């Protein structure tokens, strides 16, 4: 099985671990992630303004390419997923945006949201299956207490993201169970890490990350895992717990990545 894949800028530079172990693990699970040809930056932030058309176009371009290939579009970075998924909802629901985006890009077949956007975790849950995944685990992470850190972008706003319960998500915990680890539930797992504000106001971002990590640690977590490079950065800067990408844990459990946690 082959899916179209949108890695995003950060995964090509600072977050190569998220990308590399994600691809290799998926390959081992029987699914090839084929990078979209000539993809462009998703824009990193979803424009909340109704009249911002241009900044949503690169996402539409990626969606169109996936539609033309006839496969779902898989993302890995939370920010890319957020932007692309919401742009897809917009083009399906907002007529003004749809007609203007199509007018700019003038594709052979107009695009109106036909592509399916899947986050890597959704592929694990819904295509591979967590039961099936747990059977393929070679090095279970037995006894490791891990706090899943969701952050904001995967979950909210839930009406568009439709990823998991925005206040009580389970997908990362189910993933952690499948690879043999022990998920730790803590309330701050869906509170902001400080986001891009880290650039201007490091102190504030660090206090956010600390609140997240302290809560996880107090509930018994030994480490944190995330799907977002910016979350990882902020948690590493301000948090007291080791933080890794979930694909690293996956690769380790599947026996693809060596080394201790």
């Amino acid at each position, binding site marked *: 099985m082959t899916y179209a894949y949108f890695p*995003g*800028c*950060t995964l090509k*530079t*600072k*977050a190569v671990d998220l990308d590399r172990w994600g691809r290799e693990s998926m390959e081992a699970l029987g699914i090839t992630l084929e990078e979209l040809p000539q993809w462009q*930056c998703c*824009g*990193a*932030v979803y*424009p*909340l*303004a*109704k*009249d*911002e058309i*241009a*900044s949503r176009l690169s996402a539409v371009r990626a969606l169109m390419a996936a539609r033309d290939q006839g496969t779902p579009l898989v993302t890995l*970075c939370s*920010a890319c997923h957020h932007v692309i998924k919401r742009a897809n909802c917009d083009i399906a629901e907002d007529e003004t945006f749809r007609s203007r985006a199509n007018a700019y890009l003038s594709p052979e077949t107009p695009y109106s949201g036909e592509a399916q956007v899947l986050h890597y975790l959704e592929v694990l849950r819904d295509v591979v299956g967590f039961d099936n995944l747990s059977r393929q685990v070679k090095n279970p992470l037995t006894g490791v207490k891990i706090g899943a850190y969701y952050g*904001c972008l995967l*979950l*909210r*706003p*839930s009406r568009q993201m439709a990823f998991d319960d*925005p*206040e009580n998500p389970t997908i990362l915990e189910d993933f952690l169970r499948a690879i043999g680890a022990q998920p730790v539930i803590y309330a701050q797992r869906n*509170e*902001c890490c*400080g*986001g*891009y*504000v*880290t*650039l*201007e*106001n490091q102190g*504030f971002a660090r206090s*956010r990350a600390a*609140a997240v990590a302290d809560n996880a640690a107090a509930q018994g977590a030994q480490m944190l895992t995330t799907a977002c*490079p*910016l979350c*990882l*950065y902020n948690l*590493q*800067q301000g948090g007291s717990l080791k933080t890794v990408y979930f694909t690293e844990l996956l690769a380790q459990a599947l026996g693809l990545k060596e080394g201790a946690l």
Partner: protein
Amino acid sequence: MTDWSSRVQEISGVNPRKCMKCGKCTAACPAYDQMEYHPHQFVDMVQTGRVEELMASKGIYTCLSCFACVERCPRNVQPSSIIEAVRLAVIRRQGGNHRKPDEIPALLNEELPQQAITSALRKYSKGG
């Protein structure tokens, strides 16, 4: 004279009259201490036409766009879209950029992911 209130409602697509003034947005806001005006005040002040005070506030650059206010609002008001629209109303003005692109490198460090840089450009300047 620009009718900023209508402008902000237009850009954001938000109808501030849907607000029932429960303050859950402000209760959920993780950036509360960093902002002079808080999510419920943005909604209220846009409704009552006090947008210029909001435009002059620094808090528009510390909203994290975490969408906690959007998710938890019982009335589906979407305060974060209002805050974003106020921010855009500022940076779209001539010389209104909060940060010029050439100021950005000084803020960077080795580890910072590209995602943060692009986000900041988008949030702080016109057409970043």
